[in-house]
């Protein structure tokens, strides 16, 4: 019963979120039930996955550790301390002693097994149990090469997350970010790093011979865009992470763009085949659509001010962007063909960096007011009130988790000799603020879609 109650509470919260999300009409302020109280995280016992041989036993413990860290860091789960466990699981095909697990306050129990088949492939099987109802909630098996054990642990985590919350997970994903440092002569370096969502397996994507900024992930495949300085000015690049191939999207010789100006952060259409970005011509920045297959370039905005930071709605029909056409930067909305441009931010301060939620209902943004920076979300149509999720000395570059529940953002903390940059995550309710495990100064996170 308790399990069901807790699950109901958890799902209730999610439902409240969804309700807030779907309430599109402008009847009063944005629903704030989500922010009014944090939901108790859901207690789950995660046992070490069992194995026949020493290597499998070790892998089993590693998998349990990764799953535990994933679920715990989501803020929605409270893994029970393994030292409290009473029953020692030796066979995952037998029913566990549910009373033992209820006694340690575990509402759900995860048991699993690691084995290696004749072809040398790793088999990871698991069962998720409801300890109150004494019923199996989930039973699955994943197979891969042994080196992929971490990814299997992430897939197990995603399956559990999805079963218990009703939302898709985000654990089998990667994050690209900018590592900030200094070269041998004190010159600033900005290098792209890719890592697993939990910080494992970090590796550099670019070297220090040029600055790389503002990566964005394709929603459909392993491609990113970013801004490269290798062409002696900021230039939008496409980087295929599977082949390692990079190409400049604009080299200034494109007939549609004269003046050889910079091209900034390119964001993907939800179909993954088109981009939208801000391109400079003699100081002024307009928005352009770019078709990756036909190489056709289409000018979408045309005014004397600076239109920057475009972001597609998940249905691909609209684009939000920042513009200083009213004097200081504010957020605007238009149809994907550039028609019906209209302002959607009217609060005090300067609004930049809009990023459309993959759920479609919200737009994240950065607000600068006086000496304070804030990360906020507003309804995509600009109605209702904005909700501030974090504020502090400096905030920039929001990036959504693929399920739209969590935002990554660049946070700058004051220090006398220059701001210290790091990447943090916060959930849609403004809770569960956590630092992303990066090495050194870090900024500009981009979050991949779920891997295949």
């Amino acid at each position, binding site marked *: 019963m308790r399990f069901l109650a807790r699950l109901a509470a958890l799902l209730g919260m999610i439902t409240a979120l969804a309700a807030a999300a779907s309430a599109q009409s402008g009847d009063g302020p944005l629903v704030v039930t989500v922010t009014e109280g944090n939901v108790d995280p859901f207690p789950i016992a995660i046992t070490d996955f069992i194995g026949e041989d020493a290597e499998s036993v070790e892998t089993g413990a590693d998998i349990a550790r990764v799953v535990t860290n994933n679920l715990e860091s989501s803020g929605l789960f409270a893994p029970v301390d393994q030292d409290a466990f009473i029953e020692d699981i030796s066979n995952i095909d037998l029913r566990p002693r549910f009373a033992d697990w209820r006694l340690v306050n575990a509402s759900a129990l995860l048991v699993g097994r690691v084995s290696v088949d004749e072809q040398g492939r790793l088999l990871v099987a698991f069962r998720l149990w409801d300890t109150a109802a004494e019923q199996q909630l989930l039973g699955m098996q994943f197979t891969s090469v042994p080196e992929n054990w971490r990814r299997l642990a992430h897939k197990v985590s995603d399956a559990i997350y999805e079963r218990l919350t009703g939302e898709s997970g985000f654990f089998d994903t990667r994050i690209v970010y900018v590592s900030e440092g200094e070269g041998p002569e004190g010159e600033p370096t900005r290098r792209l790093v890719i890592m697993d969502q939990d910080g494992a397996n970090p590796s550099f994507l670019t070297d220090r011979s040029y600055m790389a900024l*503002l990566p964005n992930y394709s929603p459909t495949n392993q491609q990113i865009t970013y801004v490269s300085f290798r062409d002696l000015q900021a230039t939008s690049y496409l980087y295929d992470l599977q082949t390692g191939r990079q190409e400049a999207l604009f080299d200034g010789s494109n007939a549609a763009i004269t003046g050889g100006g910079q091209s900034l952060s390119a964001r993907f259409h939800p179909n993954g085949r088109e981009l939208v970005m801000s391109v400079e011509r*003699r*100081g*002024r920045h307009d928005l352009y659509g770019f078709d990756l297959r036909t190489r056709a370039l289409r000018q979408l905005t045309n005014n004397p001010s*600076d239109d*920057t930071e475009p972001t597609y709605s998940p249905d691909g029909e609209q684009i939000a962007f920042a513009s200083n056409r009213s004097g200081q930067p504010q957020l605007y909305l238009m149809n994907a063909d550039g028609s019906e441009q209209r302002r959607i931010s009217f609060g005090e301060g300067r609004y*930049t960096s809009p990023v459309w939620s993959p759920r479609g209902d919200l737009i994240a943004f950065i607000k600068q007011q006086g000496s304070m920076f804030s990360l906020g979300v507003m309804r995509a149509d600009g109605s209702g009130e904005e909700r501030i999720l974090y504020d502090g000395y400096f905030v*920039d570059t929001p990036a959504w988790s693929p399920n739209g529940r969590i935002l990554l953002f660049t946070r700058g903390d004051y220090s006398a*000799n220059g701001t210290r940059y790091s990447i943090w995550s916060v959930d849609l309710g403004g809770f569960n603020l956590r630092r992303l495990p990066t090495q050194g100064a870090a900024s500009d996170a981009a979050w991949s879609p779920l891997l295949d």
Partner: protein
Amino acid sequence: MKLAPLAALAAFSLLVTACASRPDETPVVEETRDDEVVTDNRPAGPVPGSLDDFEQNAGDRVFFGLDRYDLDGASRETLRRQAAWLGQYPNARILIAGNADERGTREYNLALGARRANSVRDFLVSQGVDASRISTVSYGKERPSCMQSTEACWAQNRNGITVITSGAVS
């Protein structure tokens, strides 16, 4: 609000050329080492037409107000000197780098830096410098001259810096 930093900037823009990276420190005597004084037999002042000549006698940078890219009187004065210098050394080619302070978001600052670089470019062209000798770049907030977290430092980083890329006397 906007006028105060501009006025302050005009006042120390000359000082900056001498100590670009650490403006808050007044030049101190002990930085001049004895051996340099003894062995340096060159005439006082930079070689005409050299990079040092440009930086010291024309001034290599102009400053902008918060979130602005228009040129004030002091900046136009500096750029007139730059244009005159470039008129004297017609083989020199220049890169104008637009910079922004760190108190703004990254992409917005790249756009702002491009605006500043183009303001400088347009003024130099209006003073007779051939546009083909000029290229521009925006570094946004990525290449600050001054690293301290102070308003004076941020004011210095809101600039347009003219770099002689070729054709200077060495």
